[in-house]
């Protein structure tokens, strides 16, 4: 196999090749195969991507702050992965469907998920924050890798219905070790399912380096399952956009699944409960900061003649407003009513749960009675 081995869509089938269209210092590198997929992405479009990325980073910082202040129970920061998430999600159509893990806030944002919807689950106020059907994105998935199969099944169904919609499964480098992800590759290949497997290799699975999960570039996993694998600079939004468009195009044309490995880095902790200092060096972090996806895009825009200062200012302002909105939204999320704990376990009436619900209602009513008896006294039934 030679480096020019590409399939009909121009997608690299040599996954060790690392596709980069914009260097860390913001230079545009020509790529004979990928360029045509982003030929329409002019300075305006790039500015919009810059805007997206800047805003989601600001939102991420704000959410982390909200967690530190006790407004959220937990937050898994996305900082560093903006290009991977925005570049891929902006390639999607409304009728496509996305199945994510827990860190893809930027993807949710692209799908139109609002601030309160986004924070609900992390605040612990409800089991989920949005209606998947409304936004074309499933509820977040914490069981590592499970969603890869869901995306595959959805795509199989879409194809059977004759639709040209596609699904995307987002998962991490660690997830590639779970059976579910591998089985998803098997099923997707077998049924030519229109699904894009989008792996954000952010180098770490909590404290475990990607080298513990695999000795090969993860994209190389694809070939053995019978699909193209492509490895892109996940901090290069243009390369990510191109790769995702290529993969989606393949999917829509009935050519089946693609595995994309977006090589990126988690700049923050795994979640707000994590302390990355225990397992990685400051040097490593510093090194990755030089490959920041946002500054590189701004550099590219500057080189294209865009007034970077103005853009930066403008977007910073907008991001500030979005952050304020997020902060405001968190307090609008209603605390759940006690009895809602029983809602939605089943879609149909269930005699056992109805009885249990009734008993708990009676239990709670005791306190009301007691409260009433004590005319407003603190505490419970006793």
């Amino acid at each position: 196999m030679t480096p020019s081995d590409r399939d009909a869509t121009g997608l690299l089938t040599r996954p060790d090749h690392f596709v980069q269209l914009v260097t860390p210092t913001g230079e545009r590198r020509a790529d004979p195969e990928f360029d045509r997929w982003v030929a329409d992405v002019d300075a305006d479009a790039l500015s919009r991507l810059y805007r997206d990325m800047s805003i989601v980073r600001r939102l991420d910082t704000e959410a982390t702050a909200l967690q530190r202040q006790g407004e959220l129970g937990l937050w898994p920061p996305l900082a560093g992965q903006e290009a991977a998430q925005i570049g891929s999600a902006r390639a999607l159509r409304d009728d496509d469907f996305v199945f994510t893990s827990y860190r893809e806030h930027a993807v949710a944002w692209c799908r139109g998920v609002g601030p309160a919807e986004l924070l609900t689950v992390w605040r612990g106020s409800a089991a989920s924050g949005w209606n998947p059907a409304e936004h074309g994105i499933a509820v977040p998935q914490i069981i590592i890798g499970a969603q890869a199969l869901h995306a595959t099944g959805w795509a199989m169904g879409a194809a059977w219905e004759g639709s040209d919609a596609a699904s995307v499964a987002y998962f991490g480098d660690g997830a590639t070790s779970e059976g579910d992800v591998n089985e998803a590759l098997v099923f997707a290949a077998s049924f030519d399912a229109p699904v894009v497997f989008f792996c954000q290799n952010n180098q770490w699975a909590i404290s475990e380096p990607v080298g513990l999960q695999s000795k090969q570039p993860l994209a190389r996993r694809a070939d053995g399952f019978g699909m193209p694998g492509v490895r892109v600079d996940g901090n290069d939004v243009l390369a990510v956009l191109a790769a995702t468009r290529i993969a989606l195009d393949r999917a829509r044309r009935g050519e089946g699944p693609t595995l994309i490995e977006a090589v990126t880095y988690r700049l923050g902790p795994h979640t707000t409960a994590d302390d990355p200092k225990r397992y990685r060096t400051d040097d490593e972090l510093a090194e990755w900061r030089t490959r920041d996806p946002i500054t590189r895009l701004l550099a590219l825009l500057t080189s294209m003649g865009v007034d970077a200062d103005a853009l930066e200012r403008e977007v910073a302002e907008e991001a500030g407003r979005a952050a304020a909105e997020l902060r405001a939204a968190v307090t609008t999320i209603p605390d759940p009513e006690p009895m809602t704990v029983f809602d939605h376990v089943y879609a149909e009436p269930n005699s056992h749960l109805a009885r249990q619900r009734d008993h708990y209602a009676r239990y709670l009513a005791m306190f009301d009675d007691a409260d009433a008896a004590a005319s407003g006294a603190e505490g419970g039934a006793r």
Partner: protein
Amino acid sequence: MTTLTFGKALNAGLRRALAADEKVVLMGEDIGSLGGVFRVTDGLKAEFGAHRVVDTPLSEAGIMGTAVGLAYRGFRPVVEIQFDGFIYPAFDQIVAQVAKLHYRSRGNVRMPITIRVPFGGGIGAAEHHSESPEAYFAHTAGLRVVACSNPADAYVMIQQAIASDDPVLFFEPKRRYHVKGEVDESASLADAKPMGVASVVTPGTDVTLVTYGALVQTARDAAIAAAEDGVSVEVIDLRSLAPVDYATVEASVRRTGRLVITHEAGQQGGVGAELAASVTERCFEFLEAAPVRVTGHDIPYPPAKLERHHLPDLDRILDGVDRVLGRPNSLSGVEA
């Protein structure tokens, strides 16, 4: 009325469900060309095509996980697990996804997935082919669990399960697949008894005997034998294991004051434990004796030549009846 085997009744029910709703898809290993190892899906691929009756790669988690994705897109997948013992690789997708997604999505995503599981022993099979895993699922909130015991019920209940907007574990007693019975293929589903309701299959007055699946027939035979001994046993076919139709069970126990439960699964934490505990809670004042359980032992399913020393049979059930009645029995004189 047509006379059909249990397996063919299921086949007829599946055919009707496939015809009634194009969102119904069957998935599983060997269910297409082969028609399933028990031939339950025989002919359905030829009739409905490879996108409705889908031979899948060999992975239970894969089948279950893609079924979840299909449900996300509005399909009603009917999944076949080839044998009971092969359901465990799919356990995570069942308990963490199928069972929970309606709750986790606040009712926005429905999981109308039917999981067909040939279950139980008595066929002299190899390891992992005779399991009774129903208690795992009955303990899992968000699932419905049913077991059918005869062709007529099989035909109706499989359609009800598929029509249910909740996920249903559908247990089929594999050793009864060849048993024949009358099936009314013209009856409308709307008139059928809901799958959540239990059936009193043999009326009686002295002892309530509750079971499901393959043991329903054994229990009925035991009731006949007991009658010869002057004991009137009421046999209830539970049909639904989660939720349980306690109205029917309670009404019976209030009359008889004595409850025997039998199932093939082990005793410890089996479905019988919940039944005994719940009936005791609900009918304590009516009970003349502690509920008695006649179950498989708490052992891995044994090799074929020992399975008759594991599975409850007519004699063991009658011994249980004797125990609940305080008649001479295997534990007479043994300290509780």
